[in-house]
């Protein structure tokens, strides 16, 4: 039996949301707290990416940057949270991200997504991560298998 479709603002039941998806469906957006140095330190440790540009201001300055900045893969991990908050992880067939601009300390990132195509029972979701001023940090696409696949 098909579930009753919840409004897209509900993120509590990702499978239900996927079951009701169609072209134009927007994923429940994910807004992160302002980026802190603590988050970058934790992500460096957890991810194993110890590139000093992200955790050591002296190294970042020596490389010509004003300050440390987020790992692109941290932003992609947030886009991944957007996806798995909406669809079962097993249904994700592919996930691509292009990193557009650096995410800096203090910026508040919001991840959003929209179903832009339905192809052979799978959904193509267009993804975007922006700061609080609408500046695009990353764009992406994911292919999500429908519930019959």
């Amino acid at each position, binding site marked *: 039996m098909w579930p009753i479709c919840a409004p897209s603002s509900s993120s509590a039941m990702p499978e239900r949301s996927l079951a009701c998806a169609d072209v134009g469906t927007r994923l429940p957006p994910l807004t*992160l*707290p302002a980026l802190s140095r603590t*988050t970058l330190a*934790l*992500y460096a*440790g*957890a*991810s*194993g*990416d110890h*590139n000093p*540009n992200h955790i050591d201001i002296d*190294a970042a300055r*020596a*490389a*010509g940057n004003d300050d440390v900045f987020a*790992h*692109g*893969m*941290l932003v*992609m*991990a*947030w886009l*991944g*949270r957007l*996806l*798995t*908050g909406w669809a079962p*992880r*097993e249904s*994700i*067939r*592919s*996930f*691509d*991200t*292009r*990193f557009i601009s650096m995410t800096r300390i203090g910026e508040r990132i919001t991840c959003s997504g929209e179903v832009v195509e339905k192809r052979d029972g799978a959904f193509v979701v267009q993804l975007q991560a922006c700061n609080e001023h609408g500046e695009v940090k990353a764009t992406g696409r994911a292919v999500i298998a429908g519930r019959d696949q």
Partner: protein
Amino acid sequence: MIDRKHIGRIVSRHQAEVERGRLRFFAKAIGETDPRWTEGERLPVPPTFLFCLDMDRPDPYDWYSGVGLSLPRVLHGEQSFVYRKPCHSGDILHFTSRIDDMYEKKGGALEFLVRATRVTDSEGTHVADLRALIIQRHA
């Protein structure tokens, strides 16, 4: 400067275990609080975590200088994942990374390198493919 003669070269090959504690730490770092990622015996691998295990070597950048890359000048331009089989804690995964392409733009001011990584499990089943576009700035 990068040199196209390195296209096709295998730059790393290693294996890594998906550890439960590491998955919990990763969830904390990305702000994920849903218990399905942190509680239970067999935890699922989140969508981007294979990239972390791909770097799980003593020095994941050890091949950079050999192909003309300098870490302070490098940016991550794009990343893609193709998933063939879901992975979980306890899995032992094998990573083989190869340089798939190298090219330049703006008269060499920007150099691009594509690294492709094939991931298989301990039974040899192909579980995922990763592609990273690495950009080197000379400005």
